[in-house]
């Protein structure tokens, strides 16, 4: 079965640089979520989109923004990167009508030097 695709899988950036993470949801899924997981931590919800509209917002820094496109893929844009942004970033997708059960991608590991 098709899964959530995230790219890139690994990313190394310098402080103050920008990064863009991409997420391709499971086909027919209409909702995308972004999470941040620091080392040894639980995933923290950042933001979600349903039918290309922002739906819920968690602890997303103002330096980050995201959007969902017409083909339902989503991008997380991160600017002015800080050392503390080093983490695993997960995208999840769901289909309304399935209890919003979220299926997670493999994650993008971001290292900020």
């Amino acid at each position: 079965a098709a899964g959530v695709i995230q790219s890139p899988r690994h990313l190394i950036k310098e402080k103050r640089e920008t990064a863009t993470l991409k997420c391709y949801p499971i086909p027919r899924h209409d909702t995308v979520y972004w999470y941040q997981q620091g080392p040894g931590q639980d995933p923290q919800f950042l933001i979600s989109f349903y039918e290309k509209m922002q739906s819920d917002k968690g602890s997303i820094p103002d330096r980050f923004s995201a959007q969902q496109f017409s083909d339902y893929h989503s991008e997380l844009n991160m600017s002015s990167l800080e050392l503390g942004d080093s983490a695993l970033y997960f995208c999840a997708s769901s289909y309304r009508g399935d209890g919003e059960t979220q299926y997670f991608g493999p994650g993008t590991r971001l290292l900020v030097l």
Partner: protein
Amino acid sequence: AQSVTQLDSQVPVFEEAPVELRCNYSSSVSVYLFWYVQYPNQGLQLLLKYLSGSTLVKGINGFEAEFNKSQTSFHLRKPSVHISDTAEYFCAVGYSGGGADGLTFGKGTHLIIQP
């Protein structure tokens, strides 16, 4: 607001022994409940979920969980564990009122299977 408490950060168990990973939640609204497993350097895989109906739910890899509304618990169980079950297990809660709300996760329980 919702919160999830996983009472044990680590659970060591001998191979082929039964295991229970505990999860309690707090919420002022009706919720959905999930268990996810994370193997080292991998993503989160859905083990099982409770949306409604029967309080005993069965998942993949022989795991099951029971939703107890009065005790606000959703403990995960497996009657006989294998070395391959060594992983981090996360309990999560989501709002059941519809909408694309983010999940709230517990801190995770590291299941360590000893030969």
